[in-house]
């Protein structure tokens, strides 16, 4: 593991203020760029052909970035095949290419350690009883074993004595939920679910049940696109859950398989904060130059976790805004990010017509 990452992980999670973070991130990114340059041939070709072979930069904005699509089209790997312990794949609708992320033992353990440190920041040092806002079928049934199942399983290791709030057809198991809460007698507990399921499977069906979740900590993820279709924004989501269940400790998170373990967690102000070993740059979608804070642009994600593949600096196709730079007085330091959705898709039509043959 590179020394700078050690240092980031040693600090209190989400505590590194911008200046200290800048230094560690820059040194760490330079170290990773040089490492991957040496060990990953496709990466070296890109650095040589697009970035003039340079692997050292004076500021993090100068660091080379890969388009997120490259993890779908190429095998980007910086370790020998024999050392790959696990290849992660992204969710994708049928027919679409998926990202393939090779993890060796080192990166996989770094990734788990980093994620644990981030989650402890909101969950505390002890593993808490956990209510999963999903059905246990999601990972029991291999046919359903998907990114959702993997996500649920991944988060379950950070809780104990798990209960599942939904049954197989995704209806709430109100009896089971009450039983779970009664046993706790007001002690803190952990909830995890995908944003859309938390809303449709849990909130909408249980909001009149008078459940008291005020001792709960909810972590949720999965994106806002389907929520936006229902005109539910993050503030609406937070207010609604607060009013219905007394639930106030709500943390959305943002991350992607290409930087697994590196999660931006939602602070009390509703913004997403990078962990100590990560950062974000927002770039103009047309010029790819960094935009001033407060302006919308393409999100570039930086993370010191990827050691077995060159995923430490990725230009995503998500749009976002840096709303605030925090010194960490409230426990959340760094750039406060708001995600605004994806860059609208647009594909040019070729001289080949795609024709739907109607019956």
């Amino acid at each position, binding site marked *: 593991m590179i020394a700078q990452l050690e240092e980031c992980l040693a600090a209190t999670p989400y505590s590194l203020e911008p200046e200290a973070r800048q230094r560690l991130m820059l040194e760490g990114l330079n170290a990773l760029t040089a490492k991957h340059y040496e060990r990953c041939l496709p990466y070296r*070709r890109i650095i040589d052909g*697009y970035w003039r072979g340079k692997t050292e930069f004076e500021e993090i904005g100068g660091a080379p970035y890969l388009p997120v699509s490259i993890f779908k089209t190429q095998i980007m790997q910086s370790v020998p095949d024999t050392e790959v312990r696990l290849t992660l794949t992204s969710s994708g609708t049928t027919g679409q290419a998926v990202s393939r992320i090779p993890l060796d033992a080192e990166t996989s353990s770094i990734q788990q350690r980093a994620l644990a440190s981030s989650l402890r920041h909101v969950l505390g040092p002890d593993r808490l009883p956990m209510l999963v806002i999903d059905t246990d079928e999601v990972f029991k049934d291999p046919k359903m074993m998907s990114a959702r199942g993997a996500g649920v399983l991944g988060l379950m290791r950070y809780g104990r004595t798990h209960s599942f709030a939904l049954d197989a057809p995704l209806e709430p198991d109100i009896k089971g939920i009450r039983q779970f809460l009664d046993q706790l007698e007001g002690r803190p507990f952990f909830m995890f679910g995908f944003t859309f399921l938390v809303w449709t499977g849990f909130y909408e069906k249980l909001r009149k049940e008078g459940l008291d979740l005020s001792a709960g900590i909810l972590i949720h993820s999965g994106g806002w696109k389907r929520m936006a279709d229902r005109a539910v924004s993050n503030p609406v989501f937070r207010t609604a859950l607060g009013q219905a269940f007394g639930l106030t400790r709500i943390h959305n998170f943002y991350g992607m398989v290409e930087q697994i373990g590196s999660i931006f967690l939602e602070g009390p102000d509703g913004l997403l904060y990078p962990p100590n070993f990560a950062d974000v740059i927002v770039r103009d*979608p047309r010029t790819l130059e960094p935009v001033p804070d407060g302006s919308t642009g393409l999100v570039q994600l930086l993370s010191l976790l990827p050691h077995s593949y060159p995923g430490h600096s990725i230009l995503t*196709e998500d749009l976002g805004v840096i709303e605030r730079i925090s010194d960490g007085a409230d426990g959340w330091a760094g750039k406060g990010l708001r995600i605004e959705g994806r860059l609208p898709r647009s594909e040019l039509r070729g001289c080949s017509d795609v024709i739907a043959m109607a019956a």
Partner: protein
Amino acid sequence: MSLAEATDEALVERVKRMAGMAREPFLPAAIDLLSGMSRAILADSETKLVPQYVALAYWMRGAAVKKLAKAFLNTIPDGEILAPRGLALHLPPTNVDTIFVYSWALSALAGNANVVRLPATLSPQAQSLLRVVSKTLADEQQAERNLFGTYDHGGETEREICRNVDLRIIWGGDAKVEKVSQIPIRPDGLTIGFPDRQSLTLISAAAYCSADDEARDDLAARLFNDAYWFDQMGCSSPRLIVWLGDNPECRDDLYNRLEAVIQQKSYIADPAVGMAKFGLANDFLAEGVAASARRYSNELQVAEVSQPKVALQRTTGGGFFGDAQILSLDEVRNFVSRKVQTITHFGFSHEELISLARSIAGVGGYRIVPVGEALQFESTWDGVPLLSHMTRRIVVR
């Protein structure tokens, strides 16, 4: 003219009636119709502003059409009398919104009655062209013999229409040609398919380097027209630029000038297209297809490729160029295939081009024309002399 009949039944009835409406080729009325349409396009406040439509109008003007007719008639031996094929069905591509008129115009000149199947949705720009076309047809009282409309692919309506068709012209790629061709037309009918094609530009580095600023700017402007008019997605749009001879400075000089033209013409590529181009440049580098790549802007990205054949096969459109270097014209045949349509050129002698044509003849290539004329429609397309195929002959002895 009717955009479409109210029902599929009415459409089929109409097509059946049209089957007997062909006339002698090259009648003065047909020539007048095209020259009238040419004037109308240049007079219309919307269409006259679209460069592609101005080019179309120029191609259709009376003198040009007469010249085309005369040149063709000169190839007909004595004792062979030209006759129309009968009823033609045109299936234009969805992306190049002038082909529907070019294809129709040649066929109308050949005396055929015409059904032009339009895509279900037309760009506002194409709608303005269609409006001028329809008005001219009505004014010249030719609407009965020329139907522009739409119907679903793959249904009974298409089968019924095709049963009456003598000539079917399919534009729009391999899959479309293959699918549409499965539906029978008249037993003595003829189908011509225009499948997927790729195009490239060939520049003599020596000629470019000795050209003055004016000539270089002019070349950049013509390259812009060839590549950007249809977002670089036409079969004839160049996607690969091949330099004969080595001169990296000249190459960069041309792309800087092209970038200036892009800005001057205010061509804008969608950021998602820009990202697709950035992705492809990274793929080419990662795979070793390209040794270097440069993003001049969101609208222009260039990858210096060592495998021109691969670069020809993959594109995003919207301003992505593979850039390759050769040391002898003989190398062109190494990356030309049946898929390659147009080679635009700069800085070569006629003799060199003739010898290039001969050297690639066995492998592919259909047009070798100056830079700036890639999209210029001509009556021999993809190697098919269209007027010959759009007519039949009566032998008289």
